């Protein structure tokens, strides 16, 4: 029992530290958020103001914007810790590194993913989405954005210390994001067309469970390799 408690303490320590760092340097949250807002605002300007068309592209457009916004800060997820040596100390902690990594991924989601979920209704209104569809959109983002952080962490860890890592992360991570994008945007779309979103959402949930089990482990393996 005390061991379990120590593990939770370590998890929250990693989470707290990253949140504290974000509080000290607020630009990081705002970058992802601004990017999301700007892309989703520019799209109607580029495509045209017809409400029918906008409603049709809304789920896909917002999901792609969320995906790219997540990608934007991904490369920095471990880079700072790697550069200042704190990652080394985390790897030498008596607590499992995967627990600390899970804490960091949670922090990344709270900073980059959750704000997008909360902002989605406002953007949804821009695209003239009906209220209940906005609810489904928020739900799909709520399940899907942690998935983006979890999968992205693997890519961020793998490219640590590699040349041109910012571009490399996108190349590695984007193919892995395909199922998330399909189920996430698909949920909203099939709800709008009257097919119901339950199937998509439960598959998204299954992927999330799989990623929670698998991603911290793979990320840890990648981090240990990059520390060598």
């Amino acid at each position, binding site marked *: 029992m005390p061991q379990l408690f120590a593990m939770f303490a370590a998890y929250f*320590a990693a989470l707290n*530290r990253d949140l*504290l760092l974000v509080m000290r340097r607020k630009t990081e949250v705002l970058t992802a958020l601004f990017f999301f807002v700007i892309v989703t605002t520019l799209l109607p300007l580029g495509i045209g103001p017809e409400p029918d068309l906008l409603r049709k592209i809304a789920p896909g457009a917002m999901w792609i914007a969320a995906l790219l916004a997540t990608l934007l800060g991904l490369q920095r997820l471990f880079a700072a810790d790697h550069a200042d040596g704190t990652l080394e100390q985390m790897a030498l902690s008596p607590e499992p590194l995967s627990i600390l990594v899970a804490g960091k991924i949670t922090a990344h989601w709270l900073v980059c993913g959750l704000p997008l979920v909360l902002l989605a209704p406002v953007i949804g209104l821009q695209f003239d989405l009906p209220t209940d569809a906005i609810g489904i959109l928020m739900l799909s983002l709520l399940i899907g954005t942690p998935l983006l952080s979890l999968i992205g962490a693997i890519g961020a860890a793998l490219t640590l210390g590699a040349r041109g890592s910012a571009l490399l992360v996108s190349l590695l991570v984007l193919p892995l994001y395909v199922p998330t994008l399909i189920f996430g945007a698909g949920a909203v779309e099939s709800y709008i067309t009257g097919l119901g979103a339950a199937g998509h959402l439960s598959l998204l949930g299954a992927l999330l469970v799989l990623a929670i089990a698998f991603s911290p482990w793979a990320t840890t393996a990648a981090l240990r390799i990059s520390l060598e």
Partner: protein
Amino acid sequence: MLVASNLSCIRGTQTLFTDLSVQLNSGQWLYLQGENGAGKTSLLRILAGLTLPAAGSVTWHGAPISKQRSIYHTDMLYLGHHASLKEDLTLTENLRSLMAMDGLTVSDAAIQDALTRMGLARRQHLPARVLSAGQKRRGLLARLLLRAAKLWILDEPFNALDTNAITNLQESLRTHLHHGGMIILTSHQTPDLGAGATGFVLNLSGSR
């Protein structure tokens, strides 16, 4: 206690050392010598369990360190080249989060005490970014006092320290050895670890 046998290390296409064996018992120190690029840091990282050796094994109390990571990392503390401090956090916050991520809770009083002993009492609430290199180094060394680790692995601990701080640190090292601790370190200058403790000097430059 700590036994490394037949270690070899390859960096890129270059072989830094082969068939290197070391044993360290309670109350003993190991001082690594060698020019830049001879593999001192690589050896330290292998002994700390950060890097896998190309061949050979490291055991702690008879079991390989990779098999008992949690136990070994409780007993061992490694301080590397890096400051290992977050620039935006104060020294107290830095130490507190490092300790918490090690699964240990320490009181703020204990942190304050350790920082005071390192001569940083008045700097404890400043963000690390405004501190000098030596002050950061001392802030990190305060971890030695907070963690009850048996084995200290220190990469150039005297770097950037002034004479006063060097004397201070040497005193800490001597006390640690006196209480049965173990120390492995690299340094440009030969450290004075007291006549009472036994130790070895390992010269790495001969391997090329």
